[in-house]
């Protein structure tokens, strides 16, 4: 079941992205930024976690989950250390996506040439 809903929810999130790109003529960078901010807002309203419970990777693989986990990290630290935790806890949960991208970016640059 989780596989089916991961597929459907992930697909629907991508369709929203396609509409932003085609109908509102946003560039990919604008679209992704909008999504991350949107993910952060959804988590702020407490709506993103239920979506993850429901759709699994369908909600964690799209870039919206980045916003969600940034808020999550900040909130977890804030509970312990108050407002200063908001600043320090930000990357607590998200770091894997960014560090993986950096590491594989450098490895990619070592291994590959652009095909053009």
């Amino acid at each position, binding site marked *: *079941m*989780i*596989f*089916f*809903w991961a*597929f*459907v929810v992930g697909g629907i999130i991508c369709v929203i992205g396609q509409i932003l790109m085609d109908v509102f003529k946003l560039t990919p960078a604008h679209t992704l930024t909008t999504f991350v901010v949107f993910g952060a807002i959804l988590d702020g309203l407490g709506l993103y*976690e*239920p*979506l993850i*419970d*429901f759709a699994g990777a369908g909600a964690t693989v799209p870039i919206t989950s980045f916003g969600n986990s940034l808020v999550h990290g900040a909130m*977890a630290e804030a509970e312990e250390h108050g407002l200063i935790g908001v600043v320090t806890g930000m990357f*607590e*949960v998200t770091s894997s996506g960014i560090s993986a991208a950096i590491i594989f970016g450098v490895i990619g640059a070592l291994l590959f040439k652009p095909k053009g």
Partner: protein
Amino acid sequence: MIIKKVIPISMILFFLIGCQATSMEQPNDEEPSYTKLSTQNEFDQQLSNQVKEYLKDNKDLTSVQAVNDEEKILITFEIPHMKRFKLADIRKELKKDIKEKFQIKKVEVSTDQKVILELDKLEEEIQDKSVNKNELKKELKRIIKLSKKQT
């Protein structure tokens, strides 16, 4: 050009599989499945059994696992997929309910797939009597710790 052929085919395939999966899902009128643990053990699972017995009437659940030692109990459960949107609330309510009903101080509730798997394994071991008191305590502690990990 291969991509152009592969992608549509796999799309159709997954969609068919997906549709089948939905139609196979049946309404959940049945009691949640659970294993009644032997109380003849070195380690008394009476409490866990009582909890399971109690949760039997809860139509929200499809399966329940529970293991306890002398001071704490870990309960895991599964619910029908369409109810997973409310998973966090159901978990919270269940925890509160059990705490009040059985007057236990430390109740841990989890719905994590991994925790369910591990607890299932532990239940089996208890049934087989392949764990001793100390091992059980240690194992339970480990699983609870696992369920609380954030990153």
